[in-house]
């Protein structure tokens, strides 16, 4: 009984129907929570005593950076499931993650640079966290390049999955870089042991923005997963059914 959901996860028509049903809900909830969080962060939250209004960067930079890591972790777990259980849907999910993660890594790096300039006096420094995040971008590029470079889809799935799983070592390096090394980047404010070092009026819009980004990722992943499933499943009768 407990395993039936797992078997259903391996069935492309079931996953396709699930994705189609749930995308509008995830997308709608993401949009609504994003707008409320933006209003809370840009209008309602008071300015920081040190960084003044520049602290509001956190409402776009932190969720983007967090998503860049969450998408990679999701991709690595899906790739591992695909390797271990030879599940086609899992490989499709991993492939669907990569472009989304790469874009959010670009957003994390870009918004970080725009925050770094007024706070540190430089757009870029070869700091452990910044460097490790740049490596993350190259891992996404490597994953996508490898997939594009191998014609046989089964071989492409396997080779790219190995890269995704090996590369996951970079995720804790990024997360703990600010604690392990002497970093210019500030240490965690919210995702740490104990109470967040932030006032409630500043904190709720940030937490809501994290939720919004997670819901948004779910919606985009489900759309991309449907596209992947359609491309992979050739001449299956269920495709005829969903397209007519």
């Amino acid at each position, binding site marked *: 009984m407990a395993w039936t959901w797992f078997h259903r996860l391996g069935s492309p028509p079931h996953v396709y129907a699930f994705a189609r049903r749930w995308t509008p809900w995830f*997308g709608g909830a993401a949009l609504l929570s*994003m707008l409320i969080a933006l209003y809370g962060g*840009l*209008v309602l939250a008071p*300015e920081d005593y040190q960084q*003044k*209004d*520049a602290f*509001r*960067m956190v409402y*776009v*930079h932190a*969720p*983007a950076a967090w998503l860049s890591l969450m998408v990679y972790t999701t991709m690595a777990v899906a790739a591992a499931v695909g390797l271990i259980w030879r599940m086609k849907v899992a490989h499709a999910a991993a492939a669907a993650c990569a*472009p*989304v993660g790469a*874009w*959010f890594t*670009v*957003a994390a790096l*870009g*918004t970080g640079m*725009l*925050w770094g*300039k*007024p706070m540190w006096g430089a757009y870029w420094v070869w700091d452990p966290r910044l460097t490790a995040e740049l490596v993350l971008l190259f891992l996404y590029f490597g994953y996508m390049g490898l997939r594009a470079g191998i014609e046989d889809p089964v071989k492409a799935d396997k080779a790219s999955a190995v890269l995704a799983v090996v590369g996951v070592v970079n995720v804790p390096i990024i997360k703990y870089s600010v604690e392990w090394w002497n970093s210019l980047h500030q240490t965690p404010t919210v995702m740490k042991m104990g109470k967040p070092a932030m006032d409630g009026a500043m904190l709720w819009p940030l937490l809501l923005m994290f939720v919004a980004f997670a819901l*948004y990722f779910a*919606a*985009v992943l489900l*759309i*991309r997963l*449907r*596209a*992947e499933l*359609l*491309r992979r499943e*050739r*001449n299956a009768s269920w*495709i*005829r059914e969903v*397209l007519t």
Partner: protein
Amino acid sequence: MSEFLSMGGYGRYLWPAFALGFGVVVLNFVLAVKSLRNAKEEARRRLEMNP
């Protein structure tokens, strides 16, 4: 309003950062929808070739 836009002088960094971050949010949604549309068209064409 202009006070809000200037963000205590940090507006010139803050607004481009928000434009980039939420631009990526919009772009990823558009790219995903386009990818699904293309995949549907390809699948339809395949079905027409092998009825």
